[in-house]
Structure formats: structure tokens, C-alpha cells
């Protein structure tokens, strides 16, 4: 056994031994992934897991390094990139990933990706045309 494996075993027994807790937080993450289009919030997620929202917030951050809201935002932006690349319109994409207004979607997208959804989509279309030509 390598020294790395020994360290991992120690780490697991110290920090990742509560399997029930870990399984519960993984279920929360999967629920977020599968319901990006819905109006997700901490109240809803915590009710589903029969726990307090403060506890859920703390556990999610502990095991994923992000708060549920940060994770949800990252997933929505990632999914919106997939939709835009596949040709979905900016407006459809906005609502398909759970944003309630085009303005807030476009602003957040630009903050995270560095360009607006429409510019991102045009660039992807140009890339795909270049790839087809070459």
C-alpha cells in the first residue's frame, strides 16, 4: 500500500465515515441536477430531506465545497451552455434552466462566462462551421 493510500484511509475515517449523511447529501445534489428548471430553494430542499435548512446548507458546503445555491447556479450555467450549443434560443434556454427573467440570466451568464449568451452561441456556431469546413 502506498503512503497516499494510507493517508486516504485516515482521511476517510476522520472526515467521511458518516455514510448515511453522505448518501443524503448526494441525493440532494442529484435532485438539484434533475430539477434545474424548477424553482429550487433551500426551504424546499431541506423539507425533502426532513432536515433544517441551516443543517443542509452546512452539510452541502462541507461535502461539496459549495453552498447549494452556488452549486445550483453553476449547474444552471453549465446546462445553459449545452442548450445554447445545441441551438436552443437564448429565451428558451433561460426558462429551461430555471431563470425567471432574461435579464438576470444574461447578466449572470456574462458574469460567469465572460460573454453574453447570444455572443457565446454565435461563437459556438462559427466554431462548428469552421470544424465542418476543415
Amino acid at each position: 500500500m502506498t503512503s497516499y493510500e494510507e493517508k486516504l484511509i485516515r482521511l476517510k475515517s476522520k472526515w467521511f465515515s458518516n455514510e448515511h449523511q453522505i448518501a443524503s447529501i448526494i441525493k440532494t445534489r442529484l435532485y438539484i441536477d434533475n430539477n434545474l428548471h424548477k424553482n429550487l430553494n433551500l426551504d424546499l430542499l431541506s423539507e425533502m430531506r426532513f432536515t433544517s435548512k441551516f443543517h443542509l446548507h452546512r452539510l452541502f458546503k462541507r461535502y461539496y465545497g459549495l453552498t447549494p445555491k452556488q452549486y445550483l447556479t453553476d449547474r444552471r450555467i453549465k446546462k445553459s451552455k449545452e442548450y445554447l450549443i445545441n441551438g436552443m434560443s437564448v429565451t428558451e434556454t433561460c426558462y429551461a434552466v430555471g431563470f425567471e427573467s432574461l435579464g438576470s440570466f444574461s447578466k449572470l451568464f456574462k458574469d460567469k462566462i465572460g460573454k453574453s449568451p447570444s455572443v457565446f452561441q454565435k461563437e459556438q456556431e462559427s466554431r462548428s462551421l469552421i470544424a465542418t469546413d476543415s
Partner: protein
Amino acid sequence: MKVSLISIPVRDQEKAAKFYTEKLGFLIKKDAPLGGGNRWLTLVSPEWQDGPELLLEPAPMHFEPSMVFQDALMEAGIPYTQFDVDNVDSEYERLKSLNVEFSVKPTEMGTVKFAVFNDTCGNNIQIVEQL
């Protein structure tokens, strides 16, 4: 500032390019001569070709402390870096069928599953799936 490139030390750039493209599936993005047989050789993920580039850097051949550090990590089994995969189990089976050697089989810890393999160029590499 933007993170656009990470580097990994390799003992032989040509051998590394073959391993990282033929076995791991990366694509060569840039390949320019730098003199003395060295190259500026970068790779990208096929599904994220405008994402960060991975530089295959021949540092261990030109700067001894780099080789010492790399050897120490290898001996301890510590990965030099890690790559995300969708499914560790299937990637483990795929790479095993290509004769890639693993020091850590697929293992769950907390909210991740991971495995560690030898890149044949001086490094342990970890693949990780988020659970």
C-alpha cells in the same frame, strides 16, 4: 487574469503525447518547436476544446529538482494532478483494457469516486467522478 493552462512534468514529450492522446483521448492543441528537441506541446479535452490547456512540460529532463519532486510523488503514490470523468468504473475498465496500470482501484470517499493510474511518463494521475 484567467486560468488557461496547467502543466504536467513528463520525462519524454513524444511518449507522453502518445499516451495522453491515444490512451486518455486528449487532443493536441499546440505543438511548436522550442529548440534542443523541446516542444511547446499542449492538449485539450475533446469535449471542451476551448477550455484550459494541459502543457506536457519536459522540466524533469532539464531541471533536476523537478525530477526529484516527481520521483518523490511517484514513490509515495501521490497524484500529480487529476482529471474529471463521468464514470470512474467504466474509465477504469477502458484504461485497464489498454494496459494502463492502476495503483488505486475505483474507491468512494465522501461525495467522490476516484482511481489512480501511472501515466508512464513519471506521474500518478487521479481520475475523479462526483457522486
